[in-house]
């Protein structure tokens, strides 16, 4: 494999990892706050549709982004209502949200655009443009680093860079701020937060709201950055891969970056079976690559490679006790 091919694969790794990273961080905030969220997939899908639909109608990708985030946050609010306010089962609520999104996007899409659930393809201002970072062209001729900078680091849409920035930001918020302390506490022992005079409900809603925001960006990126419009079920299990990455990352922001880059890399390689074949000298089944993130997660979950301990109060609705 030559260097250029490697760079191409790394470039698409970054592209494909971005929605996973955003969704993974979304899940991280929610689960750190004690709310399990298997509805990442649905929120991403809803955001993808509403961002594409809005961008298609208005021609503005920024309005699309806003619409996508709004849609995702509405579903987050629903999840919060069910699992925080009414103390329902968080897993069941998540399942419901996934189906709701899968159904509504097609239903509304068909009603609005009559394209069998698609949105019209996005063009011009309807998509996020690729940003060439400063000196990308000037440095291109430097050996090794130059092309790496120009091909892999530079030339992505703004959301890719936002996603990458979200990693240190999330770390800072979680571990260096008052809000982060309280959020982590509410996921570990909500009674401690409650008796300290802080609202458990408020914190948990904040957690699902952040989750909605990040999922919204992930979905918007799918339809307006990675793709050019919405197609039915376009999230294609990414929400679950993000969930897998979250477990892989043991609920930590930097690890989330590494895990999603790994899974993004697997997806990127799966798109280039030819490269893999020449590299490994034998044929790797594409299906195996598809299944690899899930298999890896099961292995991690089974504790064969370190133990992943979720936040202790996760999944449990908070009921005051004496």
């Amino acid at each position, binding site marked *: 494999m030559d260097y250029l091919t490697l760079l191409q694969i790394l470039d698409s790794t970054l592209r494909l990892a971005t929605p996973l990273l955003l969704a993974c961080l979304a899940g991280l905030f929610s689960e750190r706050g004690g709310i399990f969220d298997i509805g990442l997939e649905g929120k991403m899908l809803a955001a993808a549709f509403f961002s594409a639909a809005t961008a298609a109608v208005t021609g503005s990708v920024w309005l699309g982004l806003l619409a996508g985030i709004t849609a995702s946050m509405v579903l987050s609010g629903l999840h919060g*209502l*069910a699992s925080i306010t009414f103390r329902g089962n968080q*897993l*069941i*609520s998540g399942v419901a949200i996934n189906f709701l999104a899968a159904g509504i996007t097609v*239903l509304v899409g068909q009603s609005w655009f009559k394209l069998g659930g698609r949105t019209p393809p996005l063009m011009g201002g309807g998509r996020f443009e690729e940003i060439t970072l400063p000196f990308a062209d000037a440095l291109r001729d430097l050996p090794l680093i130059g092309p790496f900078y120009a091909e892999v680091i530079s030339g992505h849409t703004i959301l890719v860079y936002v996603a990458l920035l979200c990693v240190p930001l999330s770390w800072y918020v979680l571990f260096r701020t008052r809000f982060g302390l309280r959020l982590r506490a509410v996921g570990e022992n909500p009674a401690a937060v409650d008796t300290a005079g802080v609202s458990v409900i408020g914190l948990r809603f904040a957690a699902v709201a952040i989750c909605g925001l990040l999922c919204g960006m992930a979905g918007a990126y799918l339809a307006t950055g990675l793709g050019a419009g919405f197609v039915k079920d376009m999230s294609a299990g990414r929400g679950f891969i993000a*969930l897998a990455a979250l477990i892989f990352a043991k609920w930590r922001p930097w690890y989330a970056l590494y895990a999603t880059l790994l899974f993004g890399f697997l997806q990127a390689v799966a798109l280039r079976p030819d490269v893999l074949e020449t590299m490994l000298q034998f044929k790797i089944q594409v299906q195996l690559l598809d299944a690899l993130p899930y298999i890896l*997660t*099961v292995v991690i*979950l089974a504790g064969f490679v370190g133990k992943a301990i979720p936040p202790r109060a996760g999944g449990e609705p908070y009921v005051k006790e004496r």
Partner: protein
Amino acid sequence: MQVIPRWADIVLIPAINLFLAFFISGLVILAIGEDPFEALKLMVDGALGSTYGWGFTLYYATNFIFTGLAVAVAFHAALFNIGGEGQAALGGLGVALMCLFIPWPHWTIALIAASFGAAAFGALWATIPAYLQAKRGSHVVITTIMFNFIAAALLNYVLVNLLRPAGTMDPASAKFPDAASLPTLSDMLNAIGIPFAARTPANITLIIALIACVAVYYLIWRTKLGYQLRAFGKSEPAARYAGISSVKIIMIAMAISGGLAGLMAINNVMGEAERLILNSVEGAGFIGIAVALMGRSHPFGVLLAAILFGFLYQGGAELALWTSIPRDLVVVIQALVILFTGALDGMVRAPVERIFLMMRKGA
């Protein structure tokens, strides 16, 4: 202290939940510019207005009985099996292997063998996550989700690389031999003089599904195993105190659950398609969640809920045919049913309890 009477718990609250789900579904139809009452009429006509419609409704219902029972059995042991989709897919593989590679003399024997294959493959696919939960503590919800994807990849591989007949591009197995062809519901009913539309997919598997309902009822409420399974589901420490092995219960409950999900393949793979195709489960595994929740994990409730969803599925297909409402409407209804009967149960329960408490005080 019993706050609400039993009938309110098993009839009133589910009815209110269901009403809310359908009410909002109606609003959704209204929002996309269609008439919900017109839509309902179309659905009723299409799904229940003729034996042809019933032939489809009952076919879908058969699928959902199996997947609903699968989720329900696991629920009784406090396990949430989201893996019905993958288990049913593997069940399909079991059926295909049984039908393709062994020349059966008669469909009755083929049916028994295929049922065994379907249940065994489904059970196997569920016991791996069960083992990981019982022995390694990995949450069965997450692992069964992962196993759905792994099953999809596995089936894709098997169909494309192993079962696909030479010379075809379609990722599907060869057609099963005629000896493995199951009698349809119309064959059976016409034989005893009841006219029923031909060319509908409902088949003898419906009878097996009904037997499964009865069997699950006895299993859960009348057998020692069911007693232990329910005890474990209600309180794990108590089960340990009583000497009920958590490993055994988790494994058995999930195996039964997976086996039931796998049995669905008798209906869709052997009874209908008569070959194994990609994505043959079509989400029925997930609908099992809605069916089990709506049916309160009781086999009779599951049966009713499965028929309702069978109706929605067939009705939804009719809608898509005659109006611009896509079939995905059913997915929305399914989501709302799961939401209201599952996650938002407390929203309805709390005010109902308050009303009963007020009435009691007033009395």
